[in-house]
């Protein structure tokens, strides 16, 4: 009897744990894109105050509002989804055209079908979105969705938490399958970490969210410790100057938003 009670208690506890670790999203709150099978979750109406730089690079506050809400891809676009796009369109990515040593087909580490696709330029993600009938999120949309109505540095709190992020310290040296960490309150996975995500800022692409190559923390030159993911989710919007970072790399992926009708 005692043993049976223990088993029941254990099973009950496990049930609670499972429910809290991966809360099922009500089906009416999920839209599946028939083109690539990507699930989108509803991002409710609202806004946030961003920081923008003026012509003289002086920061000022600017409220950004999304009055109608929007749908955003629950995960980063995967290798499998991107392969379907290439098979149907014959698309050749920027790194392939430039004869880069590594490409999404041949990354420098092993990737399974459920990993985020990487080694993409901004033009590649625009082409994918066009094929899938969706859009690449604007930087403001991405930030708003990432924060999910929270006011802390990260959507879970103010300091790094391994339960939410694949970073260099816990992912090792490669991407990981999507949606294995806890989602944000609106059901989005890997908004921070795993792959960097291309977003649109005016006419250019910018990267947000950090990746598995980012350190969770490291000691800076002055001896102080820093948590670089804080910069990846900072509220300052890109000022429109061209991205000077390495254009395609082993950690540059993306997710999509549904087109507004």
């Amino acid at each position, binding site marked *: 009897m005692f043993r049976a009670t223990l088993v029941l208690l254990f099973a009950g506890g496990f049930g609670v744990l499972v429910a809290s670790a991966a809360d099922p999203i009500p089906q009416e709150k999920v839209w599946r894109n028939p083109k690539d099978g990507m699930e989108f979750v509803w991002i409710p109406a609202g806004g946030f105050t961003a920081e923008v730089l003026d012509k003289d690079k002086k920061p000022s506050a600017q409220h950004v509002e999304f009055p109608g809400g929007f749908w955003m891809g629950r995960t980063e676009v995967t290798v499998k989804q991107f392969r379907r796009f290439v098979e149907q369109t014959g698309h050749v990515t920027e790194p392939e055209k430039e004869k880069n040593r590594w490409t999404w087909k041949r990354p420098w580490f092993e990737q399974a079908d459920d990993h985020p696709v990487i080694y993409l330029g901004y033009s590649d993600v625009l082409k994918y979105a066009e094929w899938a009938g969706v859009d690449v999120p604007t930087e403001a949309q991405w930030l708003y969705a990432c924060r999910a109505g929270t006011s802390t540095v990260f959507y879970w709190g103010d300091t790094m938490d391994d339960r939410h992020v694949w970073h260099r310290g816990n992912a090792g040296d490669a991407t990981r399958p999507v949606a294995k960490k806890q989602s944000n309150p609106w059901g989005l996975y890997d908004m921070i970490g795993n792959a960097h995500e291309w977003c649109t800022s005016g006419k250019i692409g910018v990267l947000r969210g950090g990746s598995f190559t*980012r350190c969770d923390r490291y000691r800076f030159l002055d001896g102080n410790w820093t948590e670089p993911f804080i910069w990846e989710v900072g509220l300052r919007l890109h000022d429109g100057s061209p991205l000077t970072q390495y254009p395609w790399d082993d950690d540059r992926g993306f997710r999509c938003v549904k087109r507004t009708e």
Partner: protein
Amino acid sequence: MDGQITRREMIYGSALVLSGACVCQVAGGADKPRSTNCHAPDLEPESLTIGQKSLTIDLAKAPSLEAVGNAAYIMDKDRKLDIIVVHAERDEYFALSRFCTHAYRPISYIRTRKLLMCNNASHSIFDLTGQVVKGPAPEPIKSYAAKLVAGTLQITL
């Protein structure tokens, strides 16, 4: 008695678990400084002798470098020393500048690949001789000759 654990079995079992934990603790050196993919501990200063154009590390006094796969930083502002020492294989050590030539951020040792990675977003990657493997780093990082001599590592600056 079938299916039940006796008192004696319980005591033996507990002893086995405890002794196993102790062995793991000793073998794994749980209290020894260990480098990660983002950070290396400071080399124990008592292990280091700094000469005019050389460094000597007494490895017996450097637990941070004991395990293969570990790395340690040597930082001395007065002497302008900023070096990462890597224990890559048994009896094989490397010494390099600990700064990336792209963003001038610290580099860390990725033991699973035996490569060094810059800690900034562009994460340039270098091999253990300092050559650029990938990323935007414009030039190799400086490497220093490191020779093992009777339990010491002698680094030529």
